[in-house]
């Protein structure tokens, strides 16, 4: 930066300034509020209903229907990153020189006028005190240096120069987290998957774009189970999943909320559930003429013989909403009775009305005696190769803040001068780059121990 006023230098200084940081953070804080008030990722219709066509157009132009991914918001984050990088480069060389000086120079003048200075007189001579003081300083602070002055000498020790790097770690970790988020957005995905019990698939659907994504393995849901507390609140959702690779079962694992399955860089989470069509049920068929009864468990698609070999009943499927003459009778099984004389018709068997088929007044009455409620499991399937960068950022920002806030670069100076008659005048004071109060307390404590020697 030779020419202070050159345009490139001014641009550089603009991006290095903390003023820019303040403005960027203020704008980030203010604009972030929008997304917590305005509906995010809604449909055009929802926005038009809420704000009218004009409002919707404005929302679209500003991109605030998905504002945390809007170009201007991302630009603000980029600006923050540039600001951090430029500022760090600008300041690091100075900090580096402080942290790794060619030679530590002791300057007693910087200490003799400090507010926290404590003075007293000792009845020992300075050479006698030096050994004891040296020992204490090196134990409490660090390596001791001695420097002679016009009136006597000073002992100097310091610790924690390296802590000045803490703030660089904090800033670098902000960048690390954002880089991790970027990697995740570019190379990862977030998809959802609905699997009925017994169903297998290797295709999931991106949550936003709804595009299919093929996984390197297949997932089968063996079973889904939901448990409730006495209060009726849900206690646990559990899916038993089997991973299938190259047509071979690799392994089976249960997943629960907070206990996902992680495999081959892909994470599978329990996120929701619902009822699915039962795959089998116990049907009881009565011949109303002979009163013969058959009762049998069959799977969907299978058939049983009617009593007396009069034909067959086939379990054809399950409807979530059974429409009967314009009335919705809810969930229902349906099947087909094929009589020996080739006549064949469908019957609906709503769950809410177990004896419904009697009303048909046919020769055979079909009743669903028992069935196990089937479920589908709602899974979240994600891949995020950036998450380790983000986690590294998490660890570093905590360490960096800790070091920056609670450990300081402290230096302590003890001055000794002869007061005549074998007595010594002693003063002690200290500087810290932060937490002056802690430094003052330490000086008080040190002074007390010095007096006791």
């Amino acid at each position, binding site marked *: 930066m030779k020419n202070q006023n050159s345009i490139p230098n001014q641009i550089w200084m603009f991006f290095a300034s*903390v*003023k820019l*940081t*303040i403005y960027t*953070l*203020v704008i*980030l*804080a203010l604009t*972030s*509020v929008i*997304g*917590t*008030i305005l509906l*995010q990722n809604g449909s055009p219709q929802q926005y038009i209903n809420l704000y009218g066509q004009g409002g919707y157009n404005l929302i679209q132009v500003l991109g605030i229907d998905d504002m*945390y991914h809007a170009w201007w918001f991302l630009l603000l984050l980029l600006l923050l990153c540039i600001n951090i990088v430029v500022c760090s480069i600008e300041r690091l060389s100075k900090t580096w020189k402080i942290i790794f000086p060619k030679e530590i120079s002791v300057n007693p003048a910087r200490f003799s006028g400090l507010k926290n200075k404590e003075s007293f007189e000792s009845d020992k001579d300075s050479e006698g005190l030096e050994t004891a003081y040296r020992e204490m300083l090196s134990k409490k602070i660090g390596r001791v240096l001695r420097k002679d002055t016009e009136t006597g000498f000073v002992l100097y020790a310091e610790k924690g120069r390296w802590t000045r790097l803490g703030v660089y770690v904090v800033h670098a970790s902000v960048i690390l987290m954002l880089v991790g*988020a970027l990697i995740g957005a570019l190379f990862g995905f*977030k998809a959802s998957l609905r699997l009925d019990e017994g169903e297998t698939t290797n295709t999931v659907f991106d949550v936003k774009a709804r595009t299919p994504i093929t996984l390197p393995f297949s997932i089968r849901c063996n079973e889904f189970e939901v448990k409730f*507390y006495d*209060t009726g*609140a*849900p*206690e*646990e*959702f559990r899916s038993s999943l089997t991973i299938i690779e190259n047509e071979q079962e690799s392994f089976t694992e249960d997943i*629960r*909320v*907070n*206990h*996902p399955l992680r495999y081959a860089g892909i*994470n599978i*989470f*329990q*996120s929701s559930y619902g009822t699915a069509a039962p795959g089998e049920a116990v049907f009881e068929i009565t011949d109303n003429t002979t009163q013969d009864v058959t009762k049998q468990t069959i799977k969907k698609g299978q058939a049983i013989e009617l009593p007396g070999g009069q034909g067959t009943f086939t379990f054809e499927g399950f409807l979530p909403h059974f429409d009967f003459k314009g009335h919705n009778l809810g969930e229902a099984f349906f099947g087909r009775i094929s009589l020996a004389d080739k006549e064949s018709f469908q019957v609906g068997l709503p769950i809410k009305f177990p004896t419904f088929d009697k009303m048909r007044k046919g020769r055979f009455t079909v009743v669903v005696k028992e069935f196990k409620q089937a479920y589908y499991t709602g899974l*979240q*399937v*994600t891949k*995020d190769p950036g*998450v380790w960068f*983000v*986690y590294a950022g*998490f660890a570093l*920002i*905590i360490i960096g*803040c*800790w070091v920056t*806030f609670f450990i300081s670069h402290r230096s302590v100076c003890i001055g000794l001068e002869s007061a005549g008659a074998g007595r010594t005048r002693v003063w002690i004071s200290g500087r810290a780059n932060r*937490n*002056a*109060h802690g430094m003052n307390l330490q000086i008080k404590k040190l002074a007390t121990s010095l007096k006791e020697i």
Partner: protein
Amino acid sequence: MNSSLLLSAATFIYALASVFYIGSFSFKKQVLAKLGFWVVVIGFLANTGGILMRWVESYQMGYGHAPFSNMYESLVFFSWTVAALYIFVEYKYKESIIGVFISPLIFLAIAYASFDPSISSKISPLIPALKSNWLIAHVVTCFLGYAGFALAFGFSFIYFIKPKDPNATSIFARLPDWELIDELTYQMIVFGFLFLTIGIITGSVWANSAWGKYWSWDPKETWSLITWFIYAIFLHLRLMRGWHGAKLAVVSIVGFACVLFTYFGVNYLLSGLHSYG
């Protein structure tokens, strides 16, 4: 003896402490403030006992979870963390006058938990998403952060009521000197910032293990981030732009308003993943 009894006791003891502190301040009786400190300590013990008993009771009811699962429990815990931090600060800085601003805050939070009829104190079972070891880490760190900011808020007030004239004789002239207030506010914000950072991080890690996403811009997450930005602004203004005194105190107050909004406002006014504070 059960947890509700202990917690009601804590509420009244904290009320008493506030009376002592305010009395000491108004009548210039140092001894009342000393008394106030010990009353806060007793209230804190009752508060601690109440929380522990509630934890035990939840096991006896067969639910078995840490008492951080609804608004009532979180407010009780908020009082606990503010009281804990305050006791530490008064012990370390030997400055009891500042309790005038903090003790009412401790009392108000726990009183609000008991007296607002819309806040249920029933121990209820945990929904599956909350069943995680991260719950405790997340709640404890967030609340330590909130406690730091609450104390900073209390101290920031001093900037507006302490007379500038060093020779003033009003009762407000007895407040600690500027240097100490500045130091205290800053230390509390630094403490709050570190723990809010850890709180946001533990929340993210938890969300990633529960839903596969460490950040989803849920309103509560977003507001905690806004709060974090405000305090980052505070730190940079103070350190790099030389701001201090009343100007900076305004930033600390705005920050605490954001904390309150993150804590209450989001629950009552916006919708999202978090079912309580």
